[in-house]
């Protein structure tokens, strides 16, 4: 993985084979920085048993959808 976040953005853009329009690189790079901040905020250090919200409504007593 590239060192700086700018280099990381450039590397991922190539890897994803995205075609950016003129002028889009700077705005998307800024959004990429914000995205990685959100990923960090969401975190990854969960206990193993924490499952995703498959059915989305983990409310006690709520019926499961078919």
């Amino acid at each position, binding site marked *: 993985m590239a060192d700086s976040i700018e280099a990381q953005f450039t590397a991922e853009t190539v890897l994803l084979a995205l*075609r950016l329009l003129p002028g*889009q690189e700077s705005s998307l790079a800024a959004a990429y920085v914000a995205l990685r*901040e959100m990923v960090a*905020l*969401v975190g990854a250090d969960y206990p193993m048993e924490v499952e*995703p919200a498959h059915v989305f409504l983990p409310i*006690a007593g709520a019926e499961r*959808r078919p």
Partner: protein
Amino acid sequence: MTAADPCFLTVAEAASLIAAKQLSPVELTRAYLDRIERLNGTLHAYVRVLHDQALTAARMATEEISAGHYRGPLHGVPIGLKDIYDTAGVPTEGGSKLCLGRIPASDATTTTLLKKAGAILLGKLTTWEFAIGGTAFDTPFPPARNPWNVERDPAGSSSGSGAAVAAGLCAAAMGSDTGGSIRWPAAWCGLAGLKPSYGRVSRAGIMPLSFSLDHAGPLTWTVEDAAIMLQAVAGHDPRDPASADRPVPDFRAALAAPELRGIRLGVARSMFERDCVASDETRAAFDRSVEVLRGLGASVTEVELPPLALYGAAAYLIARGEGFAIHEKTLRERPEDYGALARDRLMIGAYVRASDMVQAMRRRRMLAEATAAAMAEFDAILLPTVPDAAPLLAELGPYFSSERPPYMRPFNLTGQPALSVCNGFDRLGLPLSLQIVGRCFDDATVLRIGHAYERATPWRERRPQLQ
């Protein structure tokens, strides 16, 4: 109640007059069409007005009612639909160059249900491009304007829905809400805007943005009108895999109690006094609203929820990941046909890795459980809808909503019903708003609280002044 200004009747008032044959659907529809003709050039609330089709439907409604076949409170009442709701034979273009000339073969389920209830479709309403593109000037349709001050933003993405109802260009409208897109225009346009419980209203035939965050719901002048609209569109739909097969209560009957004795309300103060500090006027209006609700008999204490930014981050990753999945093909093939804001906001989803998405869904579950636990002692949570009143269009930047995040996204993530109601006006005369959030599938209590609040306050007496 009078039919002197029929465009400013609520749905409930118009329904009473129509049922009593004191107002004909044709007369009412003509009044709206005339007003749209006068004002839409300024407000850009409609992208398509169905003049002839609306009058034909109004004549049929008039005949049916005259013959004694009255269907209920939407019969003969003119409404508008955000232009992401499919309408058979009528273009549904999602505010995008990519969909110009797209004519659906069938109606969205909600469109069908509203027609079945007898509503008259006046036209299709302006939307942010694909409900994500922000207030933009590089898409085929000009952005809607705020009727309280046309230099200001009505918010979105259901921008035309908010502008049209506030300006008296329809009696009610439908919008969609992935991160606040019903409640936000309701807040800035001074309306009632309901994001129902996830699963309560079908999204089949509505252009998707984020499958697990999208909700469909009404924007109306009053909470009672929102209840009437919800009654028409709520219920299980096999065409929507997220639609819940649960009983639909009588939402309007739930409004009957004039007081709120026994209702327990929790104020999520940390969200608007710590996480994103609301303006002084927003906080003052909120505190006054709390006193009104106390005066109606509700008990009000504070509730602590997880940080706003945590909900926002999880919602953002999920929305962008799902949005890119929907738009990847066209983003790769025709990126130049998107407006710049929609293109960036959708393309960033390409960078959401599979593990990011899974972690966001894990966080979502934890947040939903924490919110449900915090609500154990409460029937509803109170907080403002947004931190500020509507800004000038010229002040909007692309990161506006992340710099001053509204207080709505948590409840897209948890799927709880959330209602925005007008709770006063700032010194410039712009609407302020209160958000009422209930337990999942307890939309009725949310409506009951909002209705009681509205009845106890004078805010529904003021309308935008438009020439």
